[in-house]
């Protein structure tokens, strides 16, 4: 146990976490040069393209330091705010963390929030200044930022480059020398914490855990504290580049278990694993049942594909327990599912995976957060996951919506613009701290729903890309919300309804109408677009009737090309949704999110 080191990596997206991790694997011989794929830790295409790790992984390295063999367990953490709970469990499984900061970028908001998490768990922090090879590297300035932040000495900061291999040996030495060995009682009953799970189509769910006390042996009868479910440990082992089966996994080590579990939902991140024969007395602290934060309808483009969509979603759920869904129906879109996601990125990922892995083209409706409505009669609480579920305003005493605490780190030049944006988004400034002379951390509270509406894009615009953002939920607050309905050709389109703050309703209604006018093609008749609150029309636009769509010439040489063009036009129309008489393209259903494009 004294030669085991468990560590994770804290880094902002694009600060070179994956490249540096690859170097560690390469230098320790865990992966041969020949096997080395770029960013070996991210094995989903989607992750590689987005440059972020969606699902955390773990890998074990062997390293000889001063004549002694060490086992280094790297626990990879997801790099996005939507997955902050998973990050917190990964961190809880470690004794140390590499803090990787891009020498040309400096510290970002996400780095800070994860760093705070690591400090809460008393992790030893090894600061690394990455991308030293870049011409734009500012080692002194960024070192100062790191020193300010964690209170280390400037000489503790290791200059490194995942690209050239600079500093990799020093990082490995620091892992061995600085990170404490795990503590735990090898003779105590088994107590292991689940920090991740993956779905394997042949083997079912593979759960990853850190053994805190005792040991797990092949064939043990095990149970999960939280779900209460029991399984046989058919196979246990440690994680090399592939699964490496073992007879036992001992105190302090990181391992996996395969026990015939079929669904990701049965394995909850943060849950405690123990044996039925000699169970531990307490569960590992910090378990949370993660609740979805953002809800949206997902509908098949072709109504006939409903069953196939259900099948695809069930498959996705096998390896993504944070995805929840239940059937719903919409007058405009037919049968589909109301889905809950951890956040906006999670929603996008699910949508993309449906398209890539299952070849399902879907219509996603305007996302919303989960509201609480309190009825006049008995102040009974009603959960609202869909604007159409909102009880009649006359019967509602008040509505509450979820709020978040948000952190933005930016250059001082953009503070004014970002404050304006936050005020615009119903935010309240809490704090403003200068991290260095020109880097500012702004903290404010705002409704989560405002992030759903084009917040990221606008933040990026007003800060010219120089702002990083992180948030965590802080509970529900009372809000003056109204349901904004959209009517196409005088028919209300339920899939376009949204709950919005009363003060925004007129403005938003106008913008949505204008956006829809842009997105819905002219048709053979005039189409009024209206925004309404209850019976009151608050905005109106008109799509004029199609007047001209005809090819001038259609002679011998034009016929094939023309036919193909019209076939394409028809195929495109088939993908549209008929709402009353109006053909509505898919992107129109998300119009609300792109009001400032």
């Amino acid at each position, binding site marked *: 146990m004294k030669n085991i080191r468990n560590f994770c990596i804290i880094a902002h997206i694009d600060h070179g976490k994956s490249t540096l991790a690859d170097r560690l694997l390469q230098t320790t011989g865990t992966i041969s040069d020949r096997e080395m794929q770029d960013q070996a830790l991210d094995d989903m295409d989607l992750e590689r393209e987005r440059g972020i790790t969606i699902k955390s992984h773990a890998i074990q390295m062997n390293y000889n330091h001063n004549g002694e063999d060490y086992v280094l367990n790297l626990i990879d953490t997801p790099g996005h705010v939507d997955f902050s709970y998973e990050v917190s469990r990964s961190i809880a499984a470690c004794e140390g963390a590499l803090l990787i900061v891009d020498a040309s970028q400096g510290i970002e908001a996400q780095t800070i929030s994860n760093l705070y998490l690591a400090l809460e768990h008393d992790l030893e922090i090894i600061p690394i200044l990455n991308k030293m090879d870049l011409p734009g590297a500012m080692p002194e300035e960024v070192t100062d930022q790191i020193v300010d932040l964690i209170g280390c000495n400037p000489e503790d900061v290791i200059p490194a480059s995942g690209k050239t291999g600079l500093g990799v040996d020093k990082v490995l030495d620091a892992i061995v020398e600085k990170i404490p060995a795990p503590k735990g009682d090898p003779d105590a009953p088994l107590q292991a914490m689940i920090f991740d799970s993956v779905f394997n189509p042949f083997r079912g769910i593979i759960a990853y855990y850190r053994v805190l006390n005792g040991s797990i042996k092949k064939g043990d009868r095990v149970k999960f504290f939280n779900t209460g479910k029991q399984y046989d440990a058919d196979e246990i082992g440690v994680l090399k580049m592939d699964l490496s089966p073992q007879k036992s996994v001992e105190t302090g080590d990181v391992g996996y278990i395969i026990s015939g579990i079929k669904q990701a939902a049965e394995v909850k991140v943060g849950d405690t694993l123990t044996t039925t024969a000699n169970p531990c007395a307490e569960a590992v602290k910090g378990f949370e049942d993660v609740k979805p934060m953002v809800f949206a309808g997902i509908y098949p483009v072709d109504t006939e594909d409903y069953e196939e969509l259900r099948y695809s979603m069930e498959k996705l759920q096998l390896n993504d327990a944070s995805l929840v869904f239940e059937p719903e129906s919409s007058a405009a879109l037919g049968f589909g599912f109301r889905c809950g996601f951890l956040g906006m990125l999670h929603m996008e990922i699910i949508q993309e995976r449906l398209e890539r892995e299952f070849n399902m083209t879907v219509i996603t409706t305007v996302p919303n957060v989960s509201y609480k409505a309190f009825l006049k009669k008995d102040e009974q609480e009603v959960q609202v996951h869909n604007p159409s579920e909102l009880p009649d305003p006359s019967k509602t005493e008040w509505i509450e919506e979820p709020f978040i605490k948000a952190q933005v780190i930016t250059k001082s030049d953009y503070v004014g613009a970002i404050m304006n944006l936050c005020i615009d988004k119903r935010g309240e400034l809490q704090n403003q701290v200068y991290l260095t002379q020109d880097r500012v951390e702004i903290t404010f509270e705002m409704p989560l729903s405002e992030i759903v509406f084009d917040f990221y894009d606008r933040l990026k615009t007003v800060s010219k890309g120089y702002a990083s953002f992180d948030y965590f939920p802080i509970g529900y607050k009372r809000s003056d919300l109204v349901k904004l309905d959209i009517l196409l050709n005088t028919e209300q389109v339920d899939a376009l309804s949204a709950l919005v703050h009363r003060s925004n309703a007129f403005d938003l209604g106008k913008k949505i109408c204008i956006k829809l006018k842009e997105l819905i093609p002219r048709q053979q008749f005039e189409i009024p677009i209206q925004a309404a609150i209850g019976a009151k029309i608050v905005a109106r636009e008109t799509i004029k009737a199609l007047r*001209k769509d005809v090819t001038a*010439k259609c002679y011998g040489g034009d016929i094939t090309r023309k036919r193909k063009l019209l076939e394409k*036009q028809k195929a495109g129309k088939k993908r549209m949704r008929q709402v009353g008489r109006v053909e509505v393209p898919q992107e129109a259903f998300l119009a609300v999110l792109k009001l400032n494009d």
Partner: protein
Amino acid sequence: MVGAICQELINKSHLFQEVSIQTIYFGGGSPSFIQTENLARILDQIRENYSLEEPLEVTIECNPDDINQNFSDAIMEMGFNRISLGIQSFFNEDLELMNRAHDSDQAASAVQQLKKSGFQNITIDLIYGLPNTSMEKWKANIQQALNLDVPHISSYCLTIEEKTLLHHQIETGAIQLPTPESQLEQFVFLSETLVKEGYEHYEISNFAKPGFESKHNSSYWKNKDYIGVGPSAHSKIGNKRFWNISNNYQYIKRLKTDLNVSEEEILSEKDLFNEMLMIGLRTKWGVKLDNIRSSEFYTTEFQKELNKKIEEGFLQIEDEAIKISGVNKFIADTIISDLFIV
């Protein structure tokens, strides 16, 4: 090039063994630019290798500035009996915008010269929907065209091709196109005026006095077979359509070395059905109900769409055929595409 064209005429003659030729058309570019001897050589090659059927329609597209007495007499002599004259507009500013070499005076004198040489069957092209075209200007253009007293007029709405200067100028706002509404107004005025003057609106872009419809173009629309020669030329025999490569140099080189110059597609039943709708609905003849009903694609879904279009007034049934009614011709693409089988 002319040698290559003559060679291709020989190569393709086996395709028209059984049938005789009813129309010949020199078009697609500026055939009036070719020396008259060469035009004659090509015509002779056709006469030698194909059987021709009288009355034969022989058309040549001409630029107004290429028409002089010598040329006009020569092509009459050779056997051309129909002239398509690319006048486009009687306003010099429009002609400049379109990079046309002729001016408005040449347009009128070309028609007079052609008539003097004995041509009766003359068609002229007019363009509308041009930038800065007011209704007054368009009316004046049509009046000028009527004054020329020709039996056939083709009129096209300006089409903006991508990657052209005009496209760029419109994108950047340097030039403004008339709205679709005013383009429609111009189309409606054109159609109403010409019909009043005794022309028949027999295809979306074509108007003819009785007996002067383009036999050649009508044969495309009646699904007859055709062979095209020269770079980019298209042919259709039965359910096979093929088209030549467009590069002049490659075209000549390949013909010299006896290599294949064309690509082809076999039209499926579905393609043929779609084309029948696409072409037929653009004409006064429409699409015969018999031809639709006998097709495997006459499904309930198709009938539903068809009935919807009839109920909404976009299509009508007349003489046992489906036709696009009135001003709806101006949105023919959408109507046709909606009926397509994909």
